């Protein structure tokens, strides 16, 4: 691999990050090569490690950073940040079996969490629909029995209200959970790669 190949791979790895972020990284490493001098090109590349790995770290960092910057992080961005951190784990120079194990665990946990969130959302939706049905059945019997109708509509409204409250809670909790998972995992990854640098 020579210098231009290194930069080609780095740039390819960074296609998904913002232009500003990508240019900053490319400028930094370009300058680094210039300052090291052409005669040290191979040495610098050995020390820098794989451009794919550098790109993965930058991507994960910028996704987590973006998440922290937002006052109301969306669930989708949270999940995609977790995913980028998982990719960075794969690119990290830790022993491969360990990396696969860690990534497998992370993917498993993420899948389980997404499952739980979906289950909660569906339950809340069912609750909501149940409330609507009870209200309508109350309206339907209003001609035959006014007390029964009022009772049904009341119960229906109560259920509707509770389901809306639960829905808000579920969405807020899911946002928070995915955001903090991405942050926590990125922190672990930072520690891990620094630890590996030491062991080399």
């Amino acid at each position, binding site marked *: 691999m020579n210098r231009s190949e290194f930069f080609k791979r780095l740039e390819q790895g960074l296609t998904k990050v913002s232009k500003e972020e990508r240019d900053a*990284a490319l400028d*930094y490493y370009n*300058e680094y090569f210039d300052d090291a001098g052409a005669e040290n090109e191979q040495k610098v590349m050995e020390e820098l490690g794989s451009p794919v790995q*550098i790109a993965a770290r930058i991507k994960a960092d910028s996704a987590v950073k973006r998440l922290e910057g937002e006052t109301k992080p969306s669930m989708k961005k949270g999940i995609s940040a977790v995913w980028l951190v998982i990719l960075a784990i794969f690119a990290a120079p830790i022993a491969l079996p360990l990396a696969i194990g860690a990534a497998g665990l992370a993917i498993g946990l993420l899948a389980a969490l997404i499952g739980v969130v979906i289950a909660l959302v569906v339950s809340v939706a069912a609750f909501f629909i149940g409330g609507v049905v009870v209200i309508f059945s109350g309206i339907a019997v209003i001609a035959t029995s006014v007390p029964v109708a009022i009772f049904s509509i009341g119960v229906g409204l109560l259920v509707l209200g509770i389901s809306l409250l639960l829905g808000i809670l579920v969405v807020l909790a899911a946002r928070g959970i995915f955001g903090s998972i991405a942050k926590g995992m990125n922190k672990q990854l930072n520690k891990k790669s620094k630890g590996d640098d030491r062991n080399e």
Partner: protein
Amino acid sequence: MGFQVGSTLLDACVLAVLSSGDTYGYVLTQTMRDVTDISESTLYPVLRRLQKDGYLTTYDQPFQGRNRRYYAITEDGKKKFEGYQRDWIRYKSQVDKLLCGGDDNE
């Protein structure tokens, strides 16, 4: 070195180097490598993060027909660094007590 440099200590070291003068990426990395065993690729995310948190700024200066990006510590960065210094002195004396036994070997 047998001790791992955590991300807080890395931040503190970068701010320490910059508090004695502006410098550019290559020199900064070499200076850090004299003290710690971090690799080049670890330093870029640290610099980027410190910059986004407002602890350092950058400016470009022409050098041999190209631009060199210099890193400079900000007022916030200086404050942060002073905090790190205080924390470090406290931490160091506690570890000294434990590892080297007593305070009589100062």
